[in-house]
Every structure is written in C-alpha cells, then in structure tokens.
C-alpha cells in the first residue's frame, strides 16, 4: 500500500522556484533548483541554503536522560557542557547501525536528538523500547520543527546579514538557543557539506520567513542532489549507503565516534569491540579511478576476477575532478594503495584504494 507522501513547510517555495522534486525518505523533496554543479559550487565557494526540514527531532528528558542517551549512543556525552553537539550512532546489539545522529546537550538531562528522515518511525520505536528501563521522557518533535542548513565559507556573514543572527560566538559542533519573536530557536555550527555553516531549527512559520529573507538576498537554494555530492567528497557517510543495519561504525571506519571506554558502555559495544580487535570482515574504503567512467551505488568491486565488494556511493567528483567512490570491500584487499577494479556496465576499470576524505573540509574549529 502506498503511503501518502509528506511535504515540508517549504514545499510550495521549492515548487515556485521550479525545483526538480523527487520523493526522498517519504518526503517530496527538491533534488535541484538549477543544477547540481552550480549549487555544489555555491556551497564550496560562498553560501547556499538547504531545506532539511524532513530530518527528525526527538527530545529526551528526565532524571536519567543523560545516562539513557549515553547508553544508546556510541559517542560520550557524560558531563559535557550545555551547548555541545555530538555526532555518533545508535546500534543494535550485533553492532549494526540503527541510525547516525546528532545529540545536542540542551541542559542537564535534556537532550535533543536529530535523526534521519527515513528512520524517524524506526528510531522512535527503538528509543522508546530501550527507554522502558530508564526514568526518561521521549518526545518526538519532528512535526513541530522545520530546519534549514546555511552552508559555505560566508555562511556566518550571511546569517547576520539576512537573518540578523550573530553566530560568530559558536565554534564547530556547538549551538545556542535564541529568542526570536517570542520563540526559542536553535542555531548550531554544524552541517553535512565539508564547509563551515549552520543549522537552524525553528517552527514552520519562522523557517518560512527565514527562507524568504535568504531568497530575497540572493542566496542559492540547494537541493538534495548537491547535498549528497558535498557530503560524499568530504568523506561523510549517508545512512542507507555507508551505514546500515548490516554495516557497523567499525566497518564504516567511524570507530572514532565510538567511545569504548565510557562508563556503562553502549548498546552494540561488545560486537564493535570484537570487530575492532579482530578486524571486521568488511571495511569501507575510498576508491579513485583514472578513467572517466562513473562508479555508482551497487556496482561490483573486483580484485582480479573475484568480487570483493560493492560501491556504496560514487560520483564524478565536482570539487575533485576524478571519478571517486566509497566501497565496502573485504578487509584483506582494503589497504591504502591497493589496486582493485570496478565493473561499470560491460567494462571493468582499475581503481586504487585511497582515504575516504577526497576533499579536505574547511570547518571553523
């Protein structure tokens, strides 16, 4: 049975701008307004704005909120200062990934979780299931919050100019709550592009007003098409491609976001620790090609004649003028510099294992 497709509060704006709209994660979302390359370069070179209102927001509060979130989250939030943002994952006991997410420390025992749109129902069910043993309240606020991401090297100046938001005091992965017309909004120095930038969470009405101001000032609207090329070049994973119920953060080489030594551990820790100690069977690598053919999700990766894995994401890079891919391959063939190949339709092309960060991010630390 087909589910009804959802829309964000900015849907009419996208349509009016002539965006190419496509269903994504249950929402009718803009893929591009003009073209992916123009939008991608706007973010790399100046500033662009994304509607990311499809993302989910869940507030966890109560006497055991910190203890609980630290148990379901791979990173360590214990004792953190209010105003910090953490990236990490929620895992199944076998180490497979439920989702990757951001955790905002809003207050002592008040956490704000930002989760992937496609996973909202699954995540909320998972969180509630785990929460039964803790004294916490779980509140899915996904329908209340809309969200925009203002990204690029001049994002800070644009936020001030167009929205009157001075975010110069925020360092990378911090946030502040601000009062705007009697409403509390959340502004964080975070993003998914490999550039400096901000994410703003507010009510639908406020986000619509902000969007209009950014458009009036000529800021490039950016679709999900370039969101994917930007995050990919910067080495950032996408749930569904590089992280899945079958792909653990250890396999995705994201162990740095798993704190194995934290008090109380986390769900999935034993499985991940074992994979880390013994070496997981599969490993996510970067691949670069000399040829111009383009690797795409699902294409086979070969070592000689043997299939050793598959491409999880691939593009002709935009900031990086090469055909590049992430691929999940057998660990033994995943060493840097190793020569593999990718089957692209009828032909097989050589590819070299490289670091996943094809583009060096420009974060303001």
């Amino acid at each position, binding site marked *: 049975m087909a589910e009804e497709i959802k829309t964000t509060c900015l849907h009419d704006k996208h349509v009016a701008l002539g965006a190419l709209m496509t269903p994504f994660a249950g929402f009718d979302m803009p*893929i*591009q307004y003009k*073209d*992916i*390359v123009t939008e991608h370069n706007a973010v790399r070179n100046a500033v662009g704005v994304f509607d990311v209102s499809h993302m989910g927001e869940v507030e966890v509060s109560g006497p055991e909120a910190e203890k609980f979130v630290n148990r379901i989250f791979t990173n360590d939030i214990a004792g953190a200062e209010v105003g910090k943002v953490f990236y990490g994952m929620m895992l199944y006991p076998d180490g497979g990934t439920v989702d990757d997410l951001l955790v905002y420390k809003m207050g002592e025992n008040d956490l704000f979780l930002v989760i992937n749109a496609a996973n909202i129902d699954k995540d909320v069910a998972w969180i509630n299931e785990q929460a039964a043993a803790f004294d916490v309240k779980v509140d899915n606020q996904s329908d209340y919050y809309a969200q925009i991401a203002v990204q690029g090297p001049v994002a800070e100046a644009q936020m001030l100019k167009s929205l009157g938001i001075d975010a110069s005091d925020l360092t990378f992965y911090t946030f502040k709550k601000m009062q705007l017309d009697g409403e509390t909004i959340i502004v964080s120095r975070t993003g998914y592009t490999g550039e400096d930038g901000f994410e703003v969470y507010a009510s639908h009405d406020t986000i619509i007003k902000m969007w209009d101001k950014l458009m009036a000032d000529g800021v490039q609207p950016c679709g999900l*098409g370039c969101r994917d*090329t930007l995050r990919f070049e910067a080495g950032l994973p996408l749930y569904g491609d590089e992280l899945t119920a079958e792909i653990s953060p250890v396999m995705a080489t994201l162990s740095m976001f798993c704190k194995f030594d934290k008090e109380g551990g986390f769900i999935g820790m034993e499985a991940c620790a074992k994979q880390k100690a013994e070496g997981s069977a599969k490993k996510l690598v970067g691949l670069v090609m000399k040829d*111009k*053919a*383009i690797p*795409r999700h699902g294409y086979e990766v070969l070592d000689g004649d043997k299939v050793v894995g598959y491409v999880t994401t691939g*593009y*002709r890079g*935009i900031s990086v003028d090469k*055909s590049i891919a992430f691929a999940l391959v057998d660990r033994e063939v995943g060493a840097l510099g190793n020569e593999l190949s990718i089957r*692209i*339709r009828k032909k097989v092309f050589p590819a070299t294992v490289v670091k996943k960060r094809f583009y060096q991010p420009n974060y303001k630390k």
Partner: protein
Amino acid sequence: MSKIIEGLYYSESHEYVRVEGEFGYIGITDHAQHELGNVVYVDMPEVDDEVTAGEEFGAVESTKAASDLMSPVSGTVVEVNEALEDEPGLINKDAFENWIIKVQLSDTAELDDLMDAAAYKAMIGE
C-alpha cells in the same frame, strides 16, 4: 521549451537519428539533455561494434544518474564522437550537433518505426 529538428527520426527513449545516405548519426535529443542535466560522461561503444534497434549501446551520465542509450536502429558503428571523451558537456551545449555514434545502417526499414519531429514533439508534450 526544448529544441526539435525537422527531418530527424526520434525514438521513445529520446534518441535521434540523422540519416545521411547509408549512415545514421545517433545522439540524444535536446529534451533528453535538459532532463539529464550536466552530462559528465558518455559511455560509447567502439568502432566495428554492432548495435541493434531497441537495445542498449552505451550510457550518458549526469552527476546524479546514469541513463542507458538505446539504439533506434541496427547497424555497425563506423565512428564515435571522440570529442565527447574530453568534453561530454558538449551534449548540453548542442545535443543535435554533438551526435554520439555514426552507424552504417543495416535495415533502413527500421526508420519507419521511429517518430518524426511532430510526433516526438507531441510525445514530450510541447
């Protein structure tokens, strides 16, 4: 509104054939290049390869997706447009000028199965 040229033959999968004597120049239509966006790679067959009407002979790729090329006619590839190897974006500049392969037609009767400019125009709703 995309460009459509009189005198060419058009397929439902948005390829065109420009016939010159016993040869056909095959490419994608202006409408197709517009739908695809920035073309970043064209996967072409090699000279002397056989192509068959209705079957895939390569692909044209934009940043976001790969789209198979279906041959509107059967024949033997006598030339590929090598300029597209270095500059695939030529297809966006002029899709009709920048054909992809030149084929020696093996059965000109196949052209009767294709659309003329008016029929193609009607199909894409312009």
